[in-house]
C-alpha cells in the first residue's frame, strides 16, 4: 500500500484531542445503549453537512495509525464522496487505505453494507443524514425523545400500515426502520432495505454518525436487529429480476445504469469491490465482453 505524505499543521486525523475524547465518550455510551441516539457536540468539518461529517467525525475519533480504511459511497469506492473522504484521511492521518473489504479494519459508508460478510476485526461507520426514525411523523425533538423513552412506536406501525393501505405492500425501500434488541426503533440510515438483514447478528461493530443532527448511535456485534413488519405482511428484502451484467451475480444489490438515449440499460453490482473480485475469479456477466478495457481488463 502507498504511504501518504500527511499535511503539516493538523493533529492526527484532523480533530483535536478534546473533540476526540468527547466523541469517544459518546461512542461508548452509544454502544452501552444499542439503538439509542446519543447527542454529541458535532464540530464544523472542512466539508459541507450532507457529505458525511458525522461519519467522518466518528472515523476520526476511532482511527489509529495501524488501521486500514475503506470508504464507500453506496457500494462504490470510486465515486466523489468516497474518494474525497479517503483522501481526507490519507492527508490528515497517513493511514493505509484500501478498496478491498477483507483488508479494511474500518469501513466508512453511505449507506450500503458490503456484500462480503464483515468480521469481528472490522468496524462499519455509517454516515447518517437524519438519525431520528420518527422525525417525519413527529417534528418536535422533545416529543420524539419522550416517544423513545416510553417505547411509544405505534405511530411507526400506523405509517407502515398506511403504506399497505395505499400500495398493497410496505413501500419503504430504504431507511427501513428496525427494532434493536426489542427496545429502540432505529433508523438504519438510508441503507437499502436489501442490507437490513446484514445488520442482525453482525460480527462487526456498527457505528452511526449524524453530523448536522449531532447524534451518534451504535449496534454492538451480535445484536438483534429486526425490520418492523406485520404478521400478514412480513419484511421482504429487495429482490432483483436481473443478474449483474459484469460479473453475473444474482445475490447482490444492483444499480440500474442507463447506457444510451434509446432506452438501453444495464444492471450492475453496487459493491464495486465485490464485483471486481468476482470478475477476477472468472465470473462473467452477459455484457462484460462489450465493456471498456478498463473494466473488462479487471478480469485479467
Amino acid at each position, binding site marked *: 500500500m502507498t504511504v501518504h505524505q500527511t499535511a503539516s499543521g493538523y493533529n492526527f486525523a484532523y480533530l483535536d484531542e478534546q473533540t476526540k475524547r468527547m466523541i469517544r465518550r459518546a461512542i*461508548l455510551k452509544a454502544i452501552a445503549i444499542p439503538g439509542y441516539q446519543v447527542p454529541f457536540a458535532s464540530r464544523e468539518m472542512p466539508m459541507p453537512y450532507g457529505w458525511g461529517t458525522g461519519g467522518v467525525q466518528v472515523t476520526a475519533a476511532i482511527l489509529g495509525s495501524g488501521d486500514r480504511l475503506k470508504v464507500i459511497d453506496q457500494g462504490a469506492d470510486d465515486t466523489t464522496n468516497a474518494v474525497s473522504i479517503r483522501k481526507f484521511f490519507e492527508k490528515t492521518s497517513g493511514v493505509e487505505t484500501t478498496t478491498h473489504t477483507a483488508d479494511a479494519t474500518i469501513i466508512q459508508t453511505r449507506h450500503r453494507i458490503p456484500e462480503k460478510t464483515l468480521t469481528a476485526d472490522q468496524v462499519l461507520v455509517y454516515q447518517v443524514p437524519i438519525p431520528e426514525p420518527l422525525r417525519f411523523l413527529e417534528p418536535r425533538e422533545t416529543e420524539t425523545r419522550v416517544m423513545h423513552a416510553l417505547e411509544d412506536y405505534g405511530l411507526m406501525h400506523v405509517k407502515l400500515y398506511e403504506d399497505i393501505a395505499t400500495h398493497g405492500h410496505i413501500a419503504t425501500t430504504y431507511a427501513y426502520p428496525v427494532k434493536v434488541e426489542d427496545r429502540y426503533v432505529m433508523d438504519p440510515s438510508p441503507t437499502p432495505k436489501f442490507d437490513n438483514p446484514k445488520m442482525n447478528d453482525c460480527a462487526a461493530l456498527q457505528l452511526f454518525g449524524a453530523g448536522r443532527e449531532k447524534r451518534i448511535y451504535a449496534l454492538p456485534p451480535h*445484536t438483534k436487529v429486526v425490520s418492523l413488519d406485520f404478521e400478514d405482511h412480513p419484511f421482504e428484502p429487495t429482490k432483483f429480476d436481473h443478474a449483474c451484467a459484469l460479473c453475473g451475480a444474482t445475490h447482490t444489490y444492483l444499480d440500474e445504469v442507463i447506457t444510451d438515449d434509446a432506452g438501453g440499460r444495464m444492471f450492475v453490482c453496487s459493491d464495486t469491490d465485490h464485483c471486481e473480485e468476482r470478475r477476477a475469479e472468472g465470473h462473467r456477466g452477459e455484457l462484460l465482453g462489450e465493456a471498456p478495457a478498463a473494466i473488462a481488463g479487471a478480469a485479467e
Partner: protein
Amino acid sequence: MALARAFADPVHDAQQTFRAVMNALARPGTLQPVAGLTGAPAPLSPVAAAVAVALADYETPLWLDGRLAAAPDVAAWLAFHTGARIGAAPSQAAFALVADAGILPDLAGFAQGTDVYPDRSTTLIVQVAELGPIASAAMRVRLAGPGISGHATLAVSCLPADIADRLAANHALFPRGVDLVLAGPEGVAALPRTTRVTLVEA
C-alpha cells in the same frame, strides 16, 4: 526539568486505550490489552490511570472511592493530567474510579441517566487484581447480551459476592443504568448495562 507526562505519545496512546475500552464494551467479557501508565501514584493502578487519562477532561466530573480519595497524590495527579474536577458527588460523576472493588458502593447512588437521556450516566472504572481467562480468579461469571454470541465467561477477582444481583438490578433499569469497565493488570473488560451476569458455581 521536563514537564511530567502521562502518555508518552498522547495522541496515539490515548487512541489505543480508547479503542481497547470501545472493544471491551462492544464485546463484554473479552480482555482487551491496555498499556498501563506506570507513573500513576498508588493505589491508582496503571491501567485504570490510562483509561482515565484517555477519556476524562474538564467536561467530566470524577468521583474517587474512599481508598483513592485517601491518597492525595491520586487526586493531584488526575487533576494535572486530565483537568477534570475531582471529588464530584457520585450522582454527578461522569466517571467513578474504584480501587477497592470489594466494597463497591451502591450502583444506584451513581448517575443513572434519565428515561429521555439514558446516556447521562456514570461509567465506573473498577480496579481488579485478576481479570480474563484466569482459572485461579476468585469468581467466574457467565455473560449474555448484545456484543456476545451465545454467552461468554469472565474470570475476575475482588468483586463483592453479591455482584451478580447488583448488576441484575442495574440491568433491569435499562435503558438507564451504569456501565462498568474492569481494569485488570494487563487490560480491560467491560460489563455494560445490557449484559446479563450470572455467577458460575466453582
